[in-house]
Structures are given as structure tokens and as C-alpha cells.
């Protein structure tokens, strides 16, 4: 589904990703862990198409398509969706309006018509309830004045409405209290299916107790230096990253 090969990325002439390889199959959940500044957010931002990153080498394929040749919005419509580490506030634009525009853009790309208003309202109410978000959030401006945890839940709400094939969730657990973590995890788990995949960026094993990953990768200094199953996360939790580094150098 997603194939990242030998990816080299620089930001303002500084090398951030230095030959990263990653393959994600449909139905899988991958977790990416690693120290601050390793390049985790950079990886998901480059896949989503954010400006300011220069790919100097390597390739990214999504369902066989060359992602680097696609516009940001084309990637999203193709089912590649990024959940932001720091969701953006857009004053004056209603949350529900953004949701509807996004959903209709994806439908249009698939050759479907606009979603009928009653159907859309039903869908959004249902998904809001799943995220335990009061429907008043729908009428508020996108992320404006939302608490940290509310912003994260709002990101997942968008995912639930848009049903991406590959959801990339960057530190979706940060700033969440324990109950909210469960709600978010439940939301993410409901996205799991045989034809979808999820890429989770996280610092904490705790999230992975709720969303069980198939693969865990350790990203250090722009490269994936170790991969394993979910037990790797547990090991990282108790031992930190140093040993991985030493192992990879050796």
C-alpha cells in the first residue's frame, strides 16, 4: 500500500531524512517511535506533501502511484490523510463546513456526487458521538479555542468522516487525558480494516496498549534503525533509545 524507498529529505539545506525505507501493507498498523527531532513528523509531512521539504533522493509510492508527483489535495483525496501533531486553527470557518467540503472533495474525485445534507448530518452526528464530542463543536470555528485534547479528538473525527485508506497520525496521544486516550484509541481502532492501514507516530507505549501495532519502527537521525513487533515498544519503554543506537552502529 505504502512504499517508501531510500528517502532523503532536506529542509533548508539541512538533511533530515537520510535513506529511510518503510513498507506498509493493507490491514496493518505501524508505529514509529524515536527521539525528539529524529524526523518522524518530517516523514509524515513529506508523505502528505507539505511545502518546504526537498526530496533529494528516493521515492514514495501509494497503491503504486508516485506520491511525489501528486498535489497535496490529490493525495488526501486518494485516501492518504495526515492527522496533525498540532492541528491548525481557522477562525470563522465552521468545523462542519470544513468536514463537508473535505468529504465532498473526496467524493467528487471518486466520481460520486455531493453527499445529501440529511445523510451528511446523520454521519457527522454519529461520528461525533463516537468521539464523545458534543455537536456544538461542529458549529464552532475549526480548532479555534479548542483544548489540546479536543483538537486531537477533532482530528480523529475528521478521519472517521473521511475514512482514509492510510491514516498517518502524528502524536495523536499527546495532551490527552486517560479517558480521552481511550476514546481516541477506540476511534482509531474503528478505522482498522483489511483494506486500510494506519501509521502512528508516538512517544509512548501506553497508546500502543490501546491500539495494537503490527510493526514497530525506531527512527533515529533520519533512518529507521530497528523494526520489530509490538514487544519492541515495550523494550523501548524500559530501556530507552541508546541501546538501539549502539546496536545499529555496531
Amino acid at each position: 500500500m505504502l512504499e517508501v524507498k531510500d528517502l532523503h529529505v532536506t529542509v533548508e539545506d539541512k538533511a533530515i531524512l537520510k535513506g529511510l525505507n518503510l513498507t506498509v501493507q493493507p490491514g496493518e498498523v505501524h508505529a514509529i517511535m524515536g527521539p525528539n527531532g529524529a524526523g518522524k513528523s518530517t516523514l509524515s509531512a513529506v508523505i502528505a506533501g507539505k511545502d518546504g521539504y526537498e526530496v533529494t533522493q528516493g521515492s514514495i509510492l501509494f497503491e503504486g502511484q508516485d506520491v511525489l508527483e501528486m498535489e497535496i489535495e490529490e493525495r488526501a483525496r486518494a485516501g492518504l490523510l495526515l492527522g496533525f501533531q498540532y492541528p491548525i486553527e481557522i477562525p470563522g470557518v465552521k468545523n462542519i463546513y470544513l468536514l463537508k467540503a473535505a468529504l465532498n472533495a473526496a467524493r467528487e474525485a471518486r466520481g460520486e456526487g455531493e453527499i445529501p445534507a440529511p445523510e451528511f448530518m446523520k454521519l457527522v452526528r454519529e461520528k461525533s458521538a463516537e468521539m464523545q464530542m458534543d455537536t456544538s463543536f461542529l458549529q464552532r470555528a475549526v480548532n479555534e479555542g479548542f483544548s489540546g485534547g479536543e483538537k486531537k479528538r477533532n482530528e480523529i473525527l475528521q478521519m472517521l468522516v473521511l475514512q482514509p485508506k492510510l491514516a498517518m497520525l502524528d502524536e495523536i496521544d499527546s495532551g490527552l487525558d486517560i479517558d480521552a486516550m481511550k476514546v481516541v484509541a477506540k476511534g482509531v481502532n474503528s478505522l482498522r480494516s483489511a483494506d486500510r492501514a494506519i501509521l502512528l507516530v508516538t512517544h509512548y507505549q501506553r497508546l500502543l496498549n490501546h491500539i495494537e501495532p503490527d510493526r514497530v519502527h525506531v527512527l533515529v537521525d533520519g533512518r529507521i534503525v530497528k523494526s520489530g513487533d509490538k514487544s519492541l515498544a515495550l523494550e523501548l519503554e524500559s530501556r530507552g533509545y541508546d541501546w538501539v543506537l549502539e546496536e545499529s552502529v555496531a
Partner: protein
Amino acid sequence: MASEEMEQLVRREYKQGFVTDIESETVPPGLDESVIAFISQKKGEPEWMLEWRLEAYRQWLKMTPPSWAHLDYPPIDYQAISYFSAPKKPEDRPQSLDEVDPKLLETYEKLGIPLHERAALAGVAVDAVFDSVSVTTTFKEKLFEAGVIFCSISEAIRDYPELVRQYLGTVVPRSDNYFAALNSAVFTDGSFVYVPEGVTCPMELSTYFRINAANTGQFERTLIVCDNKAQVSYLEGCTAPMRDENQLHAAVVELVALEDAYIKYSTVQNWYPGDEEGKGGIYNFVTKRGDCRGDRSRISWTQVETGSAITWKYPSCMLRGKESIGEFYSVAVTNGRQQADTGTKMIHIGEGTRSTIVAKGIAAGRSDQAYRGLVKIGPRAKGARNYTQCDSLLIGDQCGAHTFPYQEIGNSSATVEHEATTSKIADDQLFYCRARGIDEEDAVSMIVNGFCKDVFQELPMEFAVEAEALLNVTLEGSVG
């Protein structure tokens, strides 16, 4: 997003540029007392009106155009302008839409203003001004039943001379400023509204202004009077065809609100801004002033501006009556090489007067805009209050926005608050929307409309929709 991409995005063709070919009877360019006499005679005006005009003209001759505004424009040759043009046979003016020149209706169609449809659907009385003469007025009867007078200023001068004489020039005196003096001398049309005591006008009143005949400046004169406890909502919409020469527009709008009266004046303006070099746009020098003459009266200006090569405009309120209220809500969009210098003046004279100013500026391309606001609190304005909020949004990095708030506080019991922000249309907001699958153009329009929300919600419903559409057209372009 790269700034050149951004630039391409905000560049767009003016969709409503076209010229309707209707025979005009135009005086040769130039201005002197005989031209003014010609205008006055054409309009069948009484003697006092001609005298009034000539007095204005003589004052104008002694004045010099303002130079302080944050604008840069070549000197205007007032002798190169033609001061009167009207459809050929004014006495054969159509009495209903069926009689209107189909070409004119077509013009409105192109503008997205299907007159008959709009009039019927929205219940709006439309006093359509084509060139300088009113061509059609609808719903007049319904208004007449309510006792509301809504007609062209020329008709008013003929049919209601006492009312006109009582109020004309009492809000904006002839010698007020250079453009007001010129307008007073040569104005050819515009609207007159009188709402009698206790009457709430049964419908939104609306006028569409057009500038069409080549080389013809247009000098509208609007006078709206709300008697005690009367209310009216008035909408002015403008658009102009594509032209080569810059065109001068110097309108005067006077509003008078007596005790407990409420006048809401909304403008949605879409004038041709000129091409990318700024060539061919409208010069827009307008004097708009509201006089809250009675206690507890209220005047509210709401405007959405997306046109003009040069705009110089400060709708203002004179808050004379005790506890009277002045409001100013504005969205100004500049693109290409447009320049705008706009703002408002709130002059607090009476006790307990209040004013609110919300100004939103959006600058794109290489445009430049300034907000200039004056809040003046007089010595008698005990407990006066003002709240001002100015927000600027820059699209791309070749445009500019400047804010000049002036305050003159002559009373220590007054409260004046001012908030100002300037933000670039954030790349991360755009990225966020696009990363949800929303295309770039829609994302820009979504963010810009969100930015303008506070002002749009002050517009009458159907016009808020129109304003949003207008904004989208203004910022529309091919995504590279």
C-alpha cells in the same frame, strides 16, 4: 506555498468587464457654469437647485484635491471628463421591466443580477441606475402605501422639493471637501429615501450603480432621511465594465436619523480594479456620512469592497443625539495594483453615545491598503464608548496593509478600545485544508471568508451570500 504560485492564484480576470452599447446624449468634456446650467435644465430642476449647484462649483474652484491619503495616483484632468450622459429619450423612460432595453437587462444578467428575478424573489425594490438616469423603479406602490418615498434624487427635487431642500447638504456641506463640492455642483442622479415617523420600511431598498459611457465620471447623490422611530435598510451595489481610461467616481451619501430612528446602509462593491498594471480601473472618491441627529438613533454602515483602482472613502457617523449609536463594519479586498485608503470617522458629540468599528482588510497581489480611523470624543460626550477592531490579512508577500488609528478624546469619562492584528494568510492553514482534500482555491476562499465572518453577518442575508461570491471571484485564479 511558493509566493509566485500564490500570486498566480490571486491573479484573475475581471469576469464582469463588458460594455453595453446604448446611445447616450453626452455633453462635451469639460466643466464650467454653462455645463452645470445644462445639467440642471436637463433635469428640469427649479431655480434654487441651480443656484445651489453653482455656489458649490464656485467653492470647488477655490479648493485643492486632498493629498494626505496613503495613495499614489496621477492628477485627474477634470476638463477631460464629460459631466452628463443619459439614455436618448428621457421622457420615454420605461415604466416597467418589459419596457426596459433588453440590452440593459442582459447587462444585469451578465453581472449576475437578474433584476426581475431578484426583485420578485427577494422582495427588493430596485432603483436601477444606468449611466446617470434611473431606468426603472419597482415596488414603488407598495412603498407608497407604507408612506415611504423611494425615488431618484432628480424626481425628489421635482416632486418633494421641501424635503430635499430641508436636508440636502446638511450632513455633507457643499464645502466639506474637494470631491463633495464637485459632486454638489454636477451630481446627476442617485436615490432619495424618506421614511416617515414610526414606519419600518417594508422591504430592503437597493440600488445598483453602473458606470458605462466612455470618459464619463459619475456623480451620485444619495439622501436618506429616517423620521422619528422609523427604520430602513438600504443596499448599494456597484460594478463597472472593463475600460481603458481610469474613471472618476465621486459620490456623496447623506443619512439623517432622527429620534429613535435606525438606518442600516450596506454596500457591496465590485468595480473594475484595472488590469494587472492598474490601468483602466475606477477612481473612487466617496463622501459618506450619517448624522445621528435624534436621541437614541442608530446608523450602521456595512461595506464589502472589491473594486476600484483607487478608493478613498470614509463612511462616518456624527453622533449628536443622546445615546445614539454609530457602527462601521467593513471588508476591503485589494488585488493586482489596487490601492485603497478607507476607514471611518466616529464623532461623538452627544452624551452616552456609542460606536463600534470592525474593519477587515485583505491585500493580495501587489496591492496596498490603509485603514484610517478617527474616533473623536467631544467635551459633552459624557460616558461615550468606542470599540475598534482592525484586522489585516496579507496574501502573498508583495502586498501591504497599514493601520492609522487616530483618537481625539475630549472627555475623561469616555472609554475607547482598540485592537489590531495583521496576519499573513497562513501557509499552515492552507496546508491543513489541502491535506483534507480541499483544493487550493477553495481553501483560500474558505479561509478568507472565515476571516470576514464578523462583517458578513452584519449584511442582510441574501447579500451576505452575494458578498461571499464576490470575494471568491476577486481572489479567484487559475492554480498553476
